[in-house]
């Protein structure tokens, strides 16, 4: 893994140069706007909801965007004939994304601390964002593998959001009230993500936190295996074959 750090710093440099980080910061500003204009003074409960959107959808999108830039410019080919292995490449992309998630979290938390009231377990929410960002960045890889172009990626994201994220959000805002459906939702990753983020504000059963943590960790391992296995086929395709 001796080139992992080189790839990671390269990813972050390019995220800056290609304005991917800028777009992410812009989204943070939108979330700050939401926090600012809400009449709720203590934002401990709404805070995990905003971070949920960033750590899930933005993670998938940012991986897809950076990979599409590489496809478009042929730079993936240049990386493939460099002394790196696919694990270094995948992990560098995932962790650069996690860095972006953490920056967003840091900005929002700083705003909430200064201008609002917030009472959350900081270590808990940072750990949750790392796990959720990691998992969803890998989902971003899968969506990119199966997307022919950027529009395809966006469509894939929309489908993912519709199936996995919206039901969880509907439950959070009280539209889905059934306890049974609430339990069934544990089969989808977005539910685990939401549970972990909300647990930082307290009031979540320990079994639910453990189950969600296990889901995110095991899910990441399984998806990582899949992403790594499919990478060779993707690389061959992107090398111009």
């Amino acid at each position, binding site marked *: 893994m001796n080139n992992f750090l080189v790839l990671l710093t390269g990813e972050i440099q390019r995220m800056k140069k290609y304005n991917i980080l800028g777009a992410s910061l812009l989204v943070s500003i939108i979330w700050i706007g939401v926090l600012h204009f809400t009449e709720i003074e203590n934002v401990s409960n709404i805070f995990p909801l905003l971070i949920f959107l960033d750590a899930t959808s933005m993670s998938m999108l940012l991986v897809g965007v950076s990979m599409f830039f590489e496809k478009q*410019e042929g730079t993936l080919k240049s990386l*493939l004939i*460099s002394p790196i292995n696919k694990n270094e490449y995948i992990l560098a992309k995932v962790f650069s994304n996690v860095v972006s998630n953490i920056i967003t979290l840091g900005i929002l938390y700083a705003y909430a601390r200064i201008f609002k009231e917030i009472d959350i377990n900081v270590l808990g929410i940072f750990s949750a964002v790392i796990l959720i960002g990691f998992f969803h960045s890998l989902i971003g890889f899968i969506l990119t593998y199966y997307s022919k172009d950027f529009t395809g990626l966006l469509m894939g994201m929309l489908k993912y959001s519709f199936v996995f994220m919206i039901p969880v959000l509907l439950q959070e805002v009280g539209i889905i009230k059934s306890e049974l459906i609430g339990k069934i939702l544990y089969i989808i990753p977005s539910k685990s993500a939401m549970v972990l983020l909300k647990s930082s504000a307290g009031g979540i059963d320990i079994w639910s936190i453990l189950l969600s943590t296990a889901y995110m960790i095991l899910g990441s391992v399984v998806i990582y295996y899949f992403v790594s296995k499919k990478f060779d086929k993707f690389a061959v395709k992107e090398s111009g074959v």
Partner: protein
Amino acid sequence: MFKVKDLTFRYPKNKVDTLKGLTFEIKEGEIFGLLGPSGVGKSTTQKILTKLLDNYSGEIKYKDKDLKEYKKEFYQEIGVGFEMPVHFSKLTANENLTFFKKLYKSNADTDELLKKVGLYEDKDKQVNEYSKGMKVRLNFVRALLNNPKVLFLDEPTSGLDPKNARVVKDIIKDFKDNGGTVLLTTHLMNDVDELCDRVAFLADGQIAEIDSPKNLKLKHGQRVVDLEYAEDGSTEKASFDLDSLGADEEFLNIIKEKKIITIHSKETTLDDIFINVTGVGKDE
């Protein structure tokens, strides 16, 4: 350096093999040209030799060891110059090179290379401000930045003006003179003629000819000498057998007594060999 034996490859969605049992060797320190019409398998061969494709049959040895046994350290020893630009367009040339240099154990003096190819003054410009020719030259520098032992070059002078093409060809010659090995793929037969020690012509996934450009020209040319000379105010033509030239009285009389206008041995050109051997026009 590379020993390729019975190399066969088929793309998953294809019904026929793209490569049908190629056998050839690239010797250490030589410039080896891989030529043939588009779609004949040149790029596929190059991708296999650079380990971008691995589900082939046959045997490839690099330094007497199976190519499949090499891991990422293989890339420390090779440089690949793609035909199309492969740079991060929103990074400067210098930022691109600095990033890639960090991945290698050995680094060339890229400032020196940039000076040689005339890009040093523009090294702090974003690549998206570069012309096509500048990107091609930057590709070339990218291929050399790790002091490779083997260079894979795909159309290295394509899109370059004659002056810059000359610079690139001189660097390739210097690379060879310093012990480097080159696999060159190009459609420009003048480059092949000038640079390659040996060439292989591919046709229908097989090697149709493999030899030095000179031997190929001799093999495919006619062994005759054509003369044009002045006689009684007009221009006359004559052809003589090259092998018995010294004993040909008529030839000797003409060159002694007449004013010679032109004299040519009928060696063929690589362009003609390309067309004859591959059976297609070279622009196909």
